[in-house]
């Protein structure tokens, strides 16, 4: 079942944990052309299985762990792998992307994807060694935290004295206890969003290790090498990927967000936090950061390490810094670093944990739910994380997330979630395109699946952040591009370099200002490109290296237009699966706080005009006014029968 294309290993395997049966999953070159890999491939596999009646915690659900064709080829930042499933948090098809080394090793074992299903009869860890699948009892690992689990696995795998050359996935106590936003951990990197860890917990699957000795072969190794040299050099000299990200990480955005009034503060009541300087990326870099690190294969190296209790541990990303900083009125950086580590160790998504906590604090303040939690009252939070992970006391309730809590107690208008998934730290009332993205995103309130328009609305460029003009069309374009970058196995940060360096480093130059002025009026042109991507029948190589890189790696002919249209296919496919579960325009919402309350009473535009943008977005996508992809759209995207 090997592939004629480079980059792929040519095998997909499915494992039924209930029966222990391991079997190949049919996946053809035609499907590789249409669905590439990663999250789009996973969406197709799930689309073929899900009818709209399945429940997340059931034998009918699948956990699809998929790599992209570029994973392991040497392309920059290509260790990413994707986990997709029917999410316990949203009840819909959701995906989560991770930079750990599991995907890299999965390919070394000879597989492009691993499909897990069923509930094991006992606590299990699965060892994969090329084509050998060994189920081990995991009673000795159950209850252990993430790093403890991985260290124990490492010890088990190296008993004979050979070095540990394996990729690992595991869950922490939160996953075991099915906290709805439990994460899956690989090394120190987290597949955090949408509760994938709870699915593994339901499966009784504590961990998966994979090792092998296959080699990933690009289609054109010579071309790939030459191109990689250019691409690495470009990323390392770009102001965002070669300077800002390695130096201060994503955390560096906190100060920019403060300036642009998009730093979520006190459960999204405000867009600015007056004590942001105590919990920003600059302070993290100067006082706490030990060294910057990177995922395997990445030249950008945006990860932080900090010292905690005498050991070097992973530092926080921007979302955690924002939401567990100003988001709950905490300005104690030391505590924040500790919580970030604890959440990773317990195996919970720090965004949803922080969002749920902020909701609870406001609910307590308003008398909606007297849980004893208060903004700024930060003692005892560490114990609260433990309680959530083990579902003890109020932790048992908090483990269900803000959507379910607000349905039970009231306070939906300030439950900052969409489709059940808590929003990231970008406050959208001064970045309304991001607001639209949060609302329509397939996996719920996620900035990345939402199109990340904040990059235009103040964090890279600086277009009018409050006009709805062109935002829908730009959102479609960015969502499609990011969908495809993920599917090919690369990190979304490689796309930062899409914005030429001179625009980023000179925000006040006339040409940068001109671009800022023109973009909101370019909606029609962007829509034309989205509708007829074949018009861009070329590579945009000086700034966008992905298409040529993809071509060298796989041998599949690629252009920028084709790249966008495959992204569009993936996004629409995910949507059409979600529509089977009843998703329509009514679910593409934001809490009233963001759409109806003004962030600043004196600024009438400081809210998200979602009603204005949504119809334009649906039209730009070729979905009907109720947000359902039309037959002709599905046919155009070669998804006939997929809807």
């Amino acid at each position, binding site marked *: 079942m090997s592939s004629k294309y480079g980059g792929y290993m040519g095998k997909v395997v499915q494992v039924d944990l209930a029966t222990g049966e391991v079997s190949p999953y049919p996946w053809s070159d035609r499907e590789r052309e249409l669905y590439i890999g990663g999250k789009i491939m996973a969406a197709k596999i799930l689309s073929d299985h899900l009818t709209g009646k399945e429940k997340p915690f059931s034998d009918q659900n699948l956990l699809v762990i998929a790599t992209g064709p570029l994973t392991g*080829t*040497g*392309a*920059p930042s290509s260790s990413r792998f994707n986990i997709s499933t029917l999410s316990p948090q949203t009840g819909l098809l959701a995906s989560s992307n991770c930079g750990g*080394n599991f995907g*890299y090793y999965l390919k070394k074992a000879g597989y492009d994807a691993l499909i897990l299903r069923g509930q094991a009869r006992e606590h299990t860890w699965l060892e994969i*060694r*090329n084509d*050998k699948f060994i189920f081990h009892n995991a009673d000795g690992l159950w209850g252990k935290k993430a790093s403890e689990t991985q260290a124990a696995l490492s010890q088990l795998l190296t008993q*004979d*004295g*050979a*070095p540990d*050359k394996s990729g690992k996935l595991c869950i922490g106590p939160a996953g075991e206890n099915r906290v709805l936003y439990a994460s899956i951990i690989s090394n120190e990197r987290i597949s955090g969003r949408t509760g994938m860890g709870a699915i593994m917990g339901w499966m009784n699957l504590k961990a998966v290790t994979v090792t*092998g*000795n*296959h*080699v990933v072969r690009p289609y054109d190794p010579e071309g790939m*090498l030459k191109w*990689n*040299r250019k691409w*690495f050099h470009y990323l*390392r000299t770009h102001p965002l990927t070669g300077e800002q990200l*390695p*130096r201060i990480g994503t955390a560096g955005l906190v100060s920019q967000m403060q300036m642009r009034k998009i730093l979520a503060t006190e459960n999204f009541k405000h867009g600015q936090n007056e004590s942001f300087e105590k919990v920003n990326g600059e302070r993290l*870099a*100067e006082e706490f*950061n030990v*060294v*910057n690190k*990177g995922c*395997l*294969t*990445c*030249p950008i*190296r945006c990860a932080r390490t900090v010292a905690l209790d005498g050991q070097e541990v992973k530092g926080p990303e921007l979302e955690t810094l924002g939401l567990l900083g100003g988001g709950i009125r905490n300005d104690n950086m030391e505590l924040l670093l500790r919580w970030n580590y604890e959440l990773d160790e317990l195996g919970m998504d720090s965004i949803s944990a922080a969002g749920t906590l902020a909701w609870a604090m406001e609910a307590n303040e308003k008398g909606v739910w007297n849980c004893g939690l208060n903004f700024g009252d930060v003692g005892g939070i560490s114990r609260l994380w433990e309680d959530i992970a083990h579902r003890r006391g109020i932790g048992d309730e908090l483990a269900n997330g803000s959507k379910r809590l607000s349905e039970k107690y009231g306070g939906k208008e300030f439950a900052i979630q969409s489709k059940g998934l808590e929003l990231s730290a970008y406050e959208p009332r001064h970045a309304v395109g991001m607001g639209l993205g949060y609302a329509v995103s397939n996996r719920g309130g996620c900035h990345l699946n939402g199109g990340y328009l904040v990059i235009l609305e103040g964090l890279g460029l600086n277009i009018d952040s409050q006009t709805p003009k062109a935002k829908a069309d730009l959102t479609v374009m960015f969502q499609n591009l990011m969908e495809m970058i993920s599917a090919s196995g690369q990190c979304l940060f490689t796309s930062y370099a899409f914005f030429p360096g001179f625009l980023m480093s000179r925000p006040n130059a006339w040409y940068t200002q001109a671009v800022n002025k023109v973009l909101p009026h370019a909606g029609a042109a962007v829509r034309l490109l989205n509708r007829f991507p074949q018009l861009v029948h070329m590579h945009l190589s000086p700034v966008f290296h992905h298409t040529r890189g993809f071509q060298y790696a796989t041998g599949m002919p690629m252009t920028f237009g084709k790249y966008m249209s495959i992204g569009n296919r993936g996004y629409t496919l995910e949507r059409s699966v979600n529509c089977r579960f009843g998703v329509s325009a009514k679910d593409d919402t934001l809490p009233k706080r963001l759409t109806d309350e003004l962030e600043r009473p004196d600024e009438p535009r400081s809210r998200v005009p979602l009603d204005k943008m949504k119809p334009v977005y649906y039209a730009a996508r070729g979905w009907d006014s109720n947000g359902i992809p039309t037959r002709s759209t599905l046919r155009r995207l070669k998804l006939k029968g997929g809807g």
Partner: protein
Amino acid sequence: MSYRITDKCRGCTLCAKNCPMKAITGTVKERHVIDPDRCVSCGLCGRLCAFGAIVDDRGMAAAKVPKDQWKKPRIDPALCAACSVCVENCPRECLAISDPKYHGDITMIALLRAPEDCIGCGICAARCPVEAISLV
């Protein structure tokens, strides 16, 4: 992807003792076997075997090479981006990413941390995405 041992093997155990992946098993004076799932094709067994009993993954007989002629990786600091692919793939774990030279330094590169452990297999050079590593 695996090396093999032919019937020229005399069971001297030298390869089994040295294999970094512990992929070789066998008893003294009997033909040894390489576990194809463990072998990473580093070729150390072939370079040590005095009897020419090892064939590589293309079926070619491996030649004995004295230890002082084993090549070592040299890393071009201008090309290396500290992506860690070499570190991750080194079967002897003798490569590492350098420490920052000062607080806030972001110019780390890969380096041969333990040259005495290096077996000159060249896996680091073969996997480097930008060919920043040459064997000298």
